[in-house]
């Protein structure tokens, strides 16, 4: 699973990292900087929870064959 973050849309609410601290990283200003990160299998549920809480729907998770 791969994380795609639309950095133009991210408004720094930081809910992704609050709900899924092991998955999403924030930059110093509180904006998500996990664009392109790969999510290991055991964290995928957490990753989905974090993405679902984004008020901007800026996070898309792509299931790929390597890490699905």
């Amino acid at each position: 699973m791969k994380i795609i973050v639309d950095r133009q849309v991210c408004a720094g609410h930081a809910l992704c990292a609050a709900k899924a601290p092991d998955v999403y990283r924030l930059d110093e200003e509180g904006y998500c900087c996990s664009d392109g990160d790969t999510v290991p299998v055991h964290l995928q549920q957490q990753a989905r929870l974090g993405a679902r809480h984004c008020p901007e729907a800026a996070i898309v998770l792509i299931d790929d064959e390597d890490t699905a």
Partner: protein
Amino acid sequence: MKPPIPAHVPPERVVDFDRFTSPVLQRCPHQGVTELFSNSPDIFYATGDRGHWVVGSATVARDMLRQPDKFSSDPVNNPANARKPPTLPNQCDPPLHTELRRIINPFFSPAGVQKMEHAVRKLASELIDEVAPRGRCEFLHEIAQRFPVQLFMRMANAPMADREMLVAKVDRFTRAPDIQQRLAALTELGNYLQGMIAEREHSPGDDLVSLAIHGKVQGRGLTDDEKLGMVNLLFLGGLDTVAAMLSFIMAYLGQHPRQYQRLVDDPALIANAIEELMRVHGVAGMERGVTADMEYAGVQFKAQDRLVFMPHVYGLDAQMVDDPFRVDFDRPVSSHLVFGSGPHRCVGSHLARLEMKVFIEEWVRRIPAFSVDAEGDLPTRGGLVWSPVAVPLAWPSALAVAPAHQQAAA
């Protein structure tokens, strides 16, 4: 005198409700307004406060708040809520909004507020130590209107002696039923803050006001109106909301000793408990204006129609939360829109959470049991931000523990 209902509003959607003065707001407003909403259309037209739409359904509200192109924060689309100058960044839309918000975001990001934890804990400890031996306090005025307010005043580097005067102005802006009085309070606040802005322009510090007024948007510095609009909103948000929320939460814990005991026994539960207690005690609302004639969710809107959102009770909407009136500290997710949704979601949410969590951590360490010292339900006040009128608390002072200060600061 109430203005006439606009011709495009169908009679079956008209509800007699005034968000400042309706009797339902004067005791247990969360319960009363939730009942009112569940007996009304998802979107209805309230007759009070000069007439406006109210979005009563949480899921509909969440969808609307994420569409700023249709439901705008710019007073151009909502003239009834125009302010001079507009408060910012809440009274503008993306893309300007995105840039204005970026100026203040570092201060309020999770990493930014983490730096404040020590100061938050120290002040919470001091305030509780002051009242603990007494065995009683009136929580709203003696603690809630000091704790988050003093922290904010320190962030803004504002003179502490002006605290009560500023709190009174914000209170009038938030709760005066007459719009002229609200706008007058905002003007007074602005006149006061102009002085502070002028001073920080010449000798900036590392405080929040200096940060806000020296920001840049679209490659330029802020205009005078933008500076005032930003600083006005920081004070409106910083001086009232956490005080009201924490007062509701402490009243609840005083009325539910078994729930409180769980937090005393296991302080690790406090963070989750706060999320759940916020869900059922929303305090603040917001407005939007409709950008063009359109149909949405079965309602025919006209451009410049005024929409009021009430996250005060969205966490109690049975369509969003199962068994919403059951307060359960073990819920995996406490869904609520207490901080709003979409681009304008509250910038201070991480600070608010930190303040309330730290405060309750320090309270449970000193006061192992307490109750609300009043008969029946506590009187409350409606308005833009709901609040109890007073929260008298009492505890056996012999039980109060005074932890060593170095321990409190650890």
